[in-house]
């Protein structure tokens, strides 16, 4: 987290937490902060709404490359005092671009794929991620069993029934052939 202790994470960090890319302390802050937890939930719902409501759009590679180039240039030529600000602007632009990319089903990997580095979805360890894993997660939550931090599928800092629902949704969505 870039802010000093006691401060809330920025919107950008909340968004990174949603995608599983934020530092661990951002996640723990969200877990203990009702304000940030509400913001994280809002971001997640916004992302889900965008994904469901928006038409399939694929960002052209040339546009993506141009955004990245400008972001790198902006980050390298600015004095340090302003660099952070520009880096934040560039990151926000990248975030927008990523949102655009994720709106395309063809470019958008399923949750287990996308979150492979951050989430463990094969909960029962049988080598397959399917509804039995979502059931396993739901039962651990219901019975108060031990849970693992990597099962925070919706990145809201809490492991609850919504994570089991998110996992189940990613399972029925996971076949790109079926989506076509």
């Amino acid at each position, binding site marked *: 987290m870039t802010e000093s202790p006691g401060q809330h994470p920025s919107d950008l960090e909340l968004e990174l937490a949603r995608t599983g890319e934020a530092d661990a302390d951002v996640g723990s802050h969200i877990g203990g902060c009702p304000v940030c937890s509400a913001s994280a939930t809002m971001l997640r719902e916004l992302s889900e709404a965008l994904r469901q409501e928006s038409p399939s759009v694929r960002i052209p590679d040339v546009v993506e490359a141009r955004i990245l180039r400008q972001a790198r240039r902006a980050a390298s030529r600015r004095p340090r005092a302003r660099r952070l600000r520009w880096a934040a602007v560039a990151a926000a632009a990248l975030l927008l671009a990523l949102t655009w990319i994720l709106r395309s*089903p063809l470019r958008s990997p399923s949750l287990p794929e996308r979150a492979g580095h951050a989430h463990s979805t094969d909960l*029962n360890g*049988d080598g*397959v991620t*399917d*509804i*039995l894993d*979502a*059931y*396993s997660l*739901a*039962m651990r939550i*219901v019975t108060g069993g031990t849970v693992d931090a990597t099962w925070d599928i919706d990145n809201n800092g809490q492991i609850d029934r919504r994570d*089991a*629902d998110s996992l*189940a*949704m990613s*399972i*029925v*969505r*996971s*076949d790109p*052939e*079926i*989506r*076509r």
Partner: protein
Amino acid sequence: MIRQLMLVLGLMAVGPVLFAQEDPEPRFATIAVCIDSGSESLAAWQIELSHVGGEAEIVGIEGGVEPFEGPPYYDEAAFRSGRVVLAAFSTERNLRPGVHRVATVHAMETGNTIEYSLILKAAGNETGSRVVARVWSSRDDCKPRGMP
């Protein structure tokens, strides 16, 4: 000659109307998704549904009978393709074995030979263990196979 020409022109004008085949009337159908988990309880299931033969479009999916009375998980975007994955689980206790109506699919069908293919991807009992089960579709209700 003129009369013959008028007759030909007249036939050409009304022919398409007289000989055109009417498109089959589309109709709505309700299909029950049934799973028989035998002597094991059924706590979780996942299937892939597709239609074969004729034309059909899945227009809605809802739940079946307790404990799967709630709508299953599915991806509405897959409706267009005619193949959709359905899944659900129940965290209730004392789940029963045997035949379950786990979901209800609503489809708009055209033609006479619409059949639905269901592939069981996973079924599990209360302990989360994988169980052997059979899945089929029914236009009536789910009855154990072999029963009238």
